[in-house]
């Protein structure tokens, strides 16, 4: 079927749903953020200047971005070796692996997150092992730290990185690696010069998903990060549901949206340099 022959009206049902349930609320949100008072009587940029004029709030934006980047970096660090292992494994091992990889997606977010509390707590698994092995004299503080949060996010979001990465890497010609090795390149050089550049499209897809979901992972952020660590999602919740300052919550929301969008656009821009053909 020719592309032009497909009637655009086929997209209309979904388009109307999006317009009504996505675009309209978004415009409404933007409208709310442009009000100066909580009763939504006066228009003004007061809340925007309040947000961006305050170092604390700018810090929250920065922390959220950093959390996203850290999650992407840590996930990538583990995903690439795992994807390599997967691609070289026997079909049977691959079946088991894919089940393990998908496991985080099959469990409820809340359960997964609380499981991490059990692991990271003062009396938790990590600390008991560290103390028993004498790696640390005092229990490590993992809960309510960025390290613990990134660790939990890494596990929860690993499938989002792994699946696109594996699907691209399985399509790579195994002879390329052999050719690289035979030409005198060691494993590391072969990885960085051949496998990494050729699997970048998969990584960019994975990184986009991980970045977006790490920045907006409200449950993980608030349960593991606790009250000590404030990120944009919990700030929005606090402003909207506790303080009832809807215009300010709207400013936070639009900011979060733009922050995540900026990250995704950065990755897309990187993608233009990852053309592999």
């Amino acid at each position, binding site marked *: 079927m020719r592309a032009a022959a497909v009637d655009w009206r086929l997209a209309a049902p979904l388009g109307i749903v999006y317009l009504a349930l996505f675009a309209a609320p978004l415009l409404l949100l933007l409208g709310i953020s442009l009000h100066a008072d909580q009763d939504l009587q006066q228009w003004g940029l007061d809340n925007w200047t309040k947000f961006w004029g305050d170092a604390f709030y700018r810090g929250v934006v920065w922390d959220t971005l950093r959390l996203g980047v850290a999650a992407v970096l840590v996930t990538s660090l583990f995903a690439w070796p795992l994807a390599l292992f997967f691609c070289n494994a026997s079909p049977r091992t691959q079946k088991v692996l894919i089940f393990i990889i998908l496991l985080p997606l099959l469990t409820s977010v809340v359960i997964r997150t609380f499981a991490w509390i059990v692991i990271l707590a003062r009396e938790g698994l990590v600390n008991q092992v560290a103390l028993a092995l004498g790696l640390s004299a005092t229990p490590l503080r993992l809960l309510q730290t960025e390290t613990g949060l990134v660790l939990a996010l890494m596990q929860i979001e690993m499938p989002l990185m792994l699946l696109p990465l594996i699907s691209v890497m399985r399509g790579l010609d195994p002879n390329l690696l052999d050719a690289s090795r035979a030409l005198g390149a060691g494993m590391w050089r072969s990885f960085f010069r051949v496998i990494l550049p050729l699997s970048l499209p998969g990584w960019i897809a994975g990184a986009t998903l991980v970045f977006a979901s790490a920045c907006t992972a409200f449950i993980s952020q608030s349960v593991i990060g606790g009250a000590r660590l404030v990120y944009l999602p919990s700030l929005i919740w606090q402003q909207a549901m506790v303080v009832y300052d809807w215009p300010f919550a709207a400013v936070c929301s639009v900011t979060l949206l733009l922050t995540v969008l900026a990250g995704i656009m950065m990755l897309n821009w990187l993608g233009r340099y990852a053309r592999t*053909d």
Partner: protein
Amino acid sequence: MSQQLLLNGIVHSYGASRAVDDVTLEVKAGELIALLGPSGCGKTTLLRIVAGFIRQAAGQVVIGDRTVDDLPPNLREVGIVFQNYALFPHMTVAENIAYGLVARGVGKADQRARVAEMLATVRMEGFADRKPRQLSGGQQQRIALARALAVQPRILLLDEPFAALDKNLRLDMQIEIKRLQRQFGLTAILVTHDQEEAMSIADRIAVMNSGRIEQLGSPVAIYDAPATPFVNSFIGSSNILDGVVEDGRIRLSVGAVLPCKAPDLPQGKAVQVSIRAEQLMLVRDAAPDRFPVTLTLSLPIGGQLIHDVAASDGTTLKIATARHPGDASSLPGTWHCALTPEARPSIFPQPTP
């Protein structure tokens, strides 16, 4: 630069099946040996063992005077050309050729000079900045060859390098590879399942069957005097006739006595006689060393006429004769099949069922 390669008692198994079964092979410096055999005969496994991608279960690989068994592929200085070329798609032609030089820490200026030299060697000047996907199959093959040769490998391995090329291009590339192999005095192994390919460019052919080398010899020797029925059936097309040893000669079941001497076999021993199509001819007159046949079909194939004939017991044979200009087919009627004067039929004992 060119060095000899010695494979000494190489054994390798995949699970229960022996892929390579005690193979010993000496490739002389500057020699091109073809490993010829059907798929699954172990030829590719053997190639990958030489390259270092697979560690053999037993035996040694010796390049020059050095045993390389403990060396990873990147330290073996072996060049490989793959069937699908395996050019790096994200690099330009020049970057592909320079890849091995970069890995060896060759300086930028030397790299550029060597890349230009290799491009000239494979007659691809002016393609340096193209990406592999912008090249045709034959051009990609030339670049793959240039990339493998740029690092001056001690051994060149060719893994079915012509399989993906169309027929006309294949001959060009065979000539090209042979030319480069001669020019650089390269020790090379060619893996192939195509006997014509092996015959045309190899100095010697090792015919492989289920993990073993059945026969090793020059293309002519293997074609003219196949050592086993397998080699006989794999190389060239042959007519197989049954016979028995009788007074030092062989009586064929189709009713003729071969004019040549039988090998040293006991009286009455059942044998298989293999005669190449071009070693038979059709004549009108009967004789003790001829047998009657009916001509069913004649096909003009280029410079040859291929006749399809049936003997009295139903055995079908193919006979190839030179075609004279204007000839389209032979006349039907009674013919007798005779061996040409230079015919050297191969005689094998009848396999016991």
